[in-house]
């Protein structure tokens, strides 16, 4: 009998603890719901007076207290809607001059030693000729770097760009190990800064100012493409080898001002994506170096010459 008594008391205690927990949880949910309702109501009230416009407030949003309402700044992680940036690199036009790297470095104030777009000297087999191969970040649609990031510091935007939140990155460098294109760099020490760089407030779309202990890479110049301009590398290419555009618009443009249909260019030019077999779905397409009109690398010594 006494044992039975203790069991029922334990059960009672368990039940009351459960009840208390459920009550606390329910209250939390309810209060949150109430807050949402309140928020919606005040927004509605705030929006109404804007329609009663006089000359001073025309076209502006004025709150109930008479102050102008500022548009909510877009989240740094949000992207322009209905855009899918895409890049096409015509290897037959690339002469390995490295201007793309220079333009990129100047534009992003890339720390010394890093090349966000790097020009490789490639040779697929003994019989085939060598060629130049500019490698930006491929902005993969199935990005291995984003998959492995433990803190959501590197992420994929709706417009196709893979960005890095330098406020979030913990510097584990897993993304560098995961990237098959070796497209990522790390700030091993405090990068040297210019005054112009330090004057800017941090922006994820520029990656400026650079910081110690975080990962960096090519980001497709999101600020420029948002304004309808070419990224620095494409604009800086004297050969017009780099086309950038919107896949949804089906248009790409290069620095010569040539604007073509993206689908036609890739379809007829025999376009391919680097390491397609890995399934990373890169957003950078290459046109093979067939019938090239510019000097191709022939000897190892030539790279040293070209790079100075």
């Amino acid at each position, binding site marked *: 009998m006494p044992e039975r008594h203790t069991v029922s008391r334990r059960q009672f205690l368990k039940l009351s603890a459960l009840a208390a927990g459920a009550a606390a949880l329910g209250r939390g949910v309810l209060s949150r719901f109430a807050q949402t309702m309140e928020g919606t109501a005040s927004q509605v009230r705030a929006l109404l007076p804007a329609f009663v416009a006089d000359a001073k407030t025309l076209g502006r949003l004025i709150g109930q207290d008479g102050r102008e309402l500022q548009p909510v700044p877009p989240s740094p992680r949000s992207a322009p809607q209905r855009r899918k940036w895409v890049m096409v690199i015509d290897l037959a036009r690339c002469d390995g001059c490295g201007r793309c790297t220079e333009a990129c470095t100047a534009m992003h104030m890339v720390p010394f030693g890093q090349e966000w777009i790097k020009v490789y000297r490639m040779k697929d087999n003994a019989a085939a000729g060598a060629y130049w191969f500019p490698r930006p970040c491929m902005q993969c649609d199935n990005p291995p770097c984003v998959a492995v990031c433990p803190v*959501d510091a590197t992420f994929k935007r709706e417009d196709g760009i893979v960005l890095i939140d330098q406020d979030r990155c*913990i510097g584990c*460098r897993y993304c560098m190990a*995961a990237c098959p294109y070796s497209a990522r760099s790390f700030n091993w020490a*405090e990068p040297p800064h210019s005054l112009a760089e330090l004057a800017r407030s941090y922006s994820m779309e520029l990656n400026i100012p650079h910081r*110690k*202990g975080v990962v960096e890479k090519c980001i497709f110049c999101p600020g420029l493409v948002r304004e309808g301009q070419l990224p620095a590398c494409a604009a800086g290419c004297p050969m017009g080898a780099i086309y950038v555009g919107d896949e949804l618009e089906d248009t790409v443009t290069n620095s010569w001002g040539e604007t073509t249909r993206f689908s036609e260019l890739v379809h007829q030019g025999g376009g391919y994506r680097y390491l397609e077999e890995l399934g990373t779905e890169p957003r950078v397409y290459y046109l093979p170096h067939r019938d090239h009109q510019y000097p191709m690398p022939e000897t190892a010594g030539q790279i040293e010459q070209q790079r100075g």
Partner: protein
Amino acid sequence: METPSRFQPQERTILRSLLHSGLPFYLWVAGLGGLFLWGIRAYTVQLQEGLAATGMRDYVSWGLYITNFVFFIGISHVGALMSAILRISGAAWRKPVTRMAEAITFSSLFFGALMPIVDLGRPDRIWHLLVYPRIQSPIVWDFVCIFTYLIGSTIFLYLPMIPDVALLRDDLSQAKGWRYRLYSILALGWRGMPDQHRSLERAMSVMAVLIIPIAVSVHTVVSWIFGMTLRPGWNSTIFGPYFVMGALVSGAASVVVAMAAFRRFYHLEEYITLKHFRNMALLVLALDLIYIYFNIAEYLTVGYKMEEAERGLLYTLLGGEYALAFWLVQIGGLLLPALLFILPEVGAVERIRRVPLLRPWPLAAAASISLAAMVLLVTQGPTQTGVDFGSLGSSLSWAVALLLALLVISTLPALRAHRILAYVLGAGLIVIQAWLKRYLIIVPTLLSPYLPIQDPRIEWTTYIPTWVEWSITLGAMAGFVLLYTLFSKLFPIVSIWETREEEPRPAVTHYSREREAEA
């Protein structure tokens, strides 16, 4: 079962090792403490200069720290092996060595978990892992699994310690020092009552079953940090079991080394006998053979096909820059220990003594001279990606291999006379192999990306660890041994009450079954 307040004579030796420490002990602790502090000093340098203080750069972006991480986590698996797997399979001989194994688990997990933090570029943001975790990332899996295992194995270390702590508390009740207070708290009011024993047994059985899947998950997800990437050399389906087996063999081998050290320095000859060494050696041998099998499976399936992306890496390992380390691991760290465990058992080795050609000393001299010549040749020779199998297969290297083999054979009669020495030698080689093997899994792979490395800066295209990295590595190793040593001074390193149960007593079905298994 009543708790006797007085200890049996052989238990006094354990107690003496707890309470009395000679000068050598203090020197040992001071040395380890010094190394550990030096490691911390090196870390402060790294905090100031950033990871630029290390030899890592954009290509080899993981180095010694991640090597140490995988090594420590690997060693830690022995706790689950010894106390859970052997417990469930009813191997009673394990009892004097389980606590040694569990303490290794605790100590190595602690330092293993520290290593990725040392490796972070922004250790000040480590809390981001708690606030913004992405469950898709293997690092988060690791974080979860390692902390679960750390907590689980600490409980599993603590549970069987309660009766011993109570024994110590009762023995020290006259002294009333800080030790008495510590043991009083940790004993949780243990009086050795039958229902207390029943609860403890039940708790230990539950933990034994729980800890095995946790331990397997830990090293599986450690391997998946590598296995989930597309890199040649890491992009492999067998990485999970391959790493778990490597972890078990290195952990079991480390217990053999610890057994020998405690037996020697704490005078535990009565507890740890040749029988324990033999059983452990058999266990290590079995695990070692399975691990050799995994190695063959891993490299042969890749090497047979010679896929373009994997080829460069395989050449570096088998005949290139890392060939020496690779073959040292495979032959010196896996094959040789297996021979050291098996061959001394063969009765025929006595006859080797009678062959005059096999005198150890001249052979050792010849072997070391030709080995030195070989190392010189390998390091001077061309180290391009293309491998020169001609030089590897040259008569010199075969001569060296033959000399080394003769050398091993010549020492066999001596090792037969000193079996424990043979076991400890083999186990020590396996532990060294374990570290080197992890280095070989990480660094050469990072040097073989899909896109060829085209960088004029030589320090970016090779990996030479700096003094900061070596100091932190040494400091972590010293800290691991120090924590282990201090543990053995606070708590009996051999479970007193569990070994006492082995004393002859009226037959109880449960225990008689265990004795059968032992016999």
